[in-house]
């Protein structure tokens, strides 16, 4: 399919370990977003990439969180020294560009930190 894909779909890890989550956006989409949804809460913005501009990292909750994007393709979200409160569904979305276009979401990665 031509949608946004994310891997893994589920990740269980032990507290203190690092995890890496991957997002493959729709081809041609220059904007890419990461969100997180904790249980019973709404989607929480984490980071936004637009083309070659510096990413908007204002939503990252701590310096344990980082994300990279290679050009206008794959993005990885890395969480170092995971904590139990990091348990959530991490959603990636992409859109056509820096406008108010709709965002297309991937299925998410469910992260459980034991």
């Amino acid at each position, binding site marked *: 399919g031509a949608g946004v894909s994310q891997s893994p779909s589920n990740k269980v890890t032990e507290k203190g370990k690092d995890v890496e989550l991957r997002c493959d956006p729709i081809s041609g989409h220059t904007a890419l977003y990461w969100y997180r949804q904790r249980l019973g809460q*709404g*989607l929480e913005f984490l980071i*936004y990439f637009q083309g070659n501009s510096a990413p908007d990292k204002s939503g990252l909750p701590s310096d344990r969180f980082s994300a990279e994007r290679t050009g206008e393709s794959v993005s990885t979200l890395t969480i170092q020294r995971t904590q139990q409160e990091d348990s959530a569904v991490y959603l990636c*979305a992409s859109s056509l560009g*820096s406008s108010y276009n*709709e*965002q297309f979401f991937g299925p998410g990665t469910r992260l459980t930190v034991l």
Partner: protein
Amino acid sequence: DQQVKQNSPSLSVQEGRISILNCDYTNSMFDYFLWYKKYPAEGPTFLISISSIKDKNEDGRFTVFLNKSAKHLSLHIVPSQPGDSAVYFCAASEAFISGTYKYIFGTGTRLKVLA
């Protein structure tokens, strides 16, 4: 501080009747609003949007109303169908004013349409 609020966590509606989902926001700078629908184990899918220059936008069975003075928007689904059962999120951004495309999402309302 929750800038976008969906105060009803759940709603049940009979098939064929109208579903009304509400969303309130606190930031008067928000100028673009969207509704997303989310099925279990899937990412949200875009449903309908409205910009602050309009007070109504319609797409088939879905209509979004915006009341800027009350900082309130609502999504009407009529007639409701069992396949509409999902979690609905509203989202807002300052897209036009600041050029930021960072969306603030509400906590969602779970709609159940009863056959």
